[in-house]
C-alpha cells in the first residue's frame, strides 16, 4: 500500500506522505475529472488491470483504487 500511495502521490504532484489511503478526491486540489482519468489509465497500465467504466466514478480515495491492484 505504501508503494502504491507513493505512485499515486507522484501522479497527483503531492509530497510523499501527504497522501493517505483514506484521503478523498475533494481534499486534493489537483484531483479533477481529467486527473481521475489519468489515474485510471496509469493504474491500469502499471498493474495490468482493467477498471470497468461504471466503477470509475466511485473511486474517490487511494484505498478504492488499491482494491483493484492487490
Amino acid at each position, binding site marked *: 500500500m505504501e508503494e502504491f500511495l507513493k505512485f499515486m502521490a507522484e501522479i497527483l504532484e503531492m509530497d510523499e506522505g501527504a497522501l493517505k489511503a483514506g484521503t478523498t478526491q475533494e481534499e486534493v486540489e489537483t484531483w479533477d*475529472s*481529467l*486527473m481521475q*482519468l*489519468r489515474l*485510471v*489509465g496509469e493504474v*491500469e*497500465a502499471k498493474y495490468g488491470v482493467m477498471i470497468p*467504466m461504471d466503477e470509475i466514478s466511485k473511486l474517490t480515495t487511494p484505498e478504492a483504487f488499491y482494491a483493484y491492484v492487490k
Partner: protein
Amino acid sequence: MRISILSNVNLDMLDGLLKKEHEVYRTSGYGEWAALALRREQGLADFAPECLLLLLEGNELLKQCTEEGDWRAELDRTKEYAAKLAENYPDSFLLVSTIDVRPECIRGKDSADGALAAAAYWDGALSQLSGRYPNLHRFELRSLIEEHGRKAFYSSRFWYLGSVPYDMRALHVLADEIRRVLGKLCCVRRKVLVLDLDNTLWGGVAGEDGPEGIVLGGDHEGAVYQDTQREIRRMQRQGVLLAIASKNNPEDVTKIFRENPHMVLREEDFAAICANWEPKHENVRKMAEELNLGLDAFVFVDDNEAERAAMRIHLPEVAVVEFPAETAELPERMRRVYEEYFWSFKLTEEDREKTRQYREEKQRRDERAAAASYEDYLRSLETKIRLARVTPERMERAVQLMNKTNQFNVCTLRMDVTQLNRYLAEENGQLIMAEVSDKYGNSGWVAEFLYHTQGSAAIIDNFLMSCRVMGRMVEDAVFAAVRERLFSQGITEIRAAYRKTAKNKPVERLWEQFGFAETGADGECRQYRLLRGEERREKTDGERVHTVVWEEAEF
C-alpha cells in the same frame, strides 16, 4: 521550453505529462483551437510560447464527412486555420501533426482508399504550409500511431469517458515523442562525422586483407557494411561533413577506395582523410583546426572500445557513438546518429554545398603554404565580395547564419525571422549581407552586418561571419566598405560593442583592429567608438586586395 498544445480532441493530459520539463500553457478548450488560430488570443500571446503544437485527430476531424468532396473541404478549411495560426503566432515554432484516419471513419464501399487518400491529402496540405511559413513544421503523429498500432493507440473507453482518443500508454508514447522533438529544437547541430574504417565501414583489416579480402557487399556481413555506407552517404548528401580517422597505411586505404567495387563511399565524399598511426584524438584535433570548427562539432564512430575510451578522455567535447555489439544493428545505429546529432528542421542550399566548400577551403590553405607573402596569397584567391541588403528571399539564410555562427560573432545576437523583421521594420535596423566568392567557388552569403542609426551616429548591433571565410581578411574589406558608406551618408560616429561568449574569442580585439577606441566596459561587454576623420588611414591587405561591390549604388 514554453509550449502550448492545441487539439481538436482532449489532450490536456499531455500537459501534465510534459510539465516536469516544459512550461505548458493550457488553452481554453479542445474544441476551440480554430478560434484561437483565427485571432491572436491575448493570454496565449502573453505567454509567448516558443513552440505551439497542433495535434489533429483525423477521425474526429472528419466525422461528419461521408463523401470525398466533404473531407476535402474539411481539410481545406483546417489548412486555412493552421495557416492563420502560423500568421497570428509568428514568434512561435509551430508543429502541425499529420493525421491518421481509420477506414471505418469514412463510409462507403471504398472507405479504406478514402481514409488513405484523406491522410495523404493532409500531408500535401502540410507540405504547402511548411513551404509557405518558415515557422511551421510537420509533426509525425501518423507514423507514431502506425508504429505502435491503432489497437494499442486508440482507447474507446478514454474516448467515452473524456473525449480523450488515446490510451494512457499511447499518451506516454506521444509525450516522449514531443519531448524528443522539442529537444531537437533546442539542441545544437554537430557538423562532422569522423569514421574508423576497419570493422566499421567494412569487415576485416585494410592492411592485411587488401581490396579483395575485406568483407563488403554481397550477403550477410558484407551487406551490413554496404548498407552502413549507404546510410553514411545519405548523411553526407544531407550536409554532414565526413572524415576518416583510421590506423592504416594511407596507400592501403586509397587502394580499397579505388579498387573495391562494392565501396559506396568515395574519396571525394570526405572532407578529410587521416589514415596514419597517430593517436586518433590528435587527428581529430588537427581536423578541427583545418576545418576551422570547434571540437564540439565532431561525432566519432569506432568499433574499438579502446579508441572510443581514448577519445572520451582526450577530447571530451567530441560525441562518441556507442558501437552496437551486433553488427546487423550498424545501419540502424547510423540512422540514429544522424537523428541525434545532425538532423535539423530545414536544410538550405548552403548546407548541401558545404562539403564542396570545405574542400575548397583546404585547397586554399595548401596554396597559402606555398604562396610567398600573405598579400600574394590573398591576391591569388581573387576574392570578390558582394554587399547587399537583406531581402525576403535571403531571410531564411540570414537567420540561419545569425543563429549558428559562434566564433566570429561580436555580440552573438540571435534572432528568428519575426524578430529580424521587427528589427528591420520597427527599430530602424539595417542588415547588410556579404556574399563571398573566389577562384575556387562561391561560398554564398557568409557575413552579416547589423546596425541602426540614431541621428548622426550609427550603432552596430552585430557583425558576424561564417568560419568558412575566416582568416582571409574578408572582414576588413566588408567593414571598410560599410564604414565608407556610412560616413558618406553623413554619419559622423560609429558605435560598436564586443560581448564575450564561450566561443567568440577570435573577435575579441576586432574593433581595436578596425581603429575603434574603447569607451567603456561593463561585465562581459565592451563598448567602442569610431569618429569620422579618425579612421585608420593605412589600408590592410584585405582592404587593398579584395574586390567589394555593392548591389545597390545607394540606399
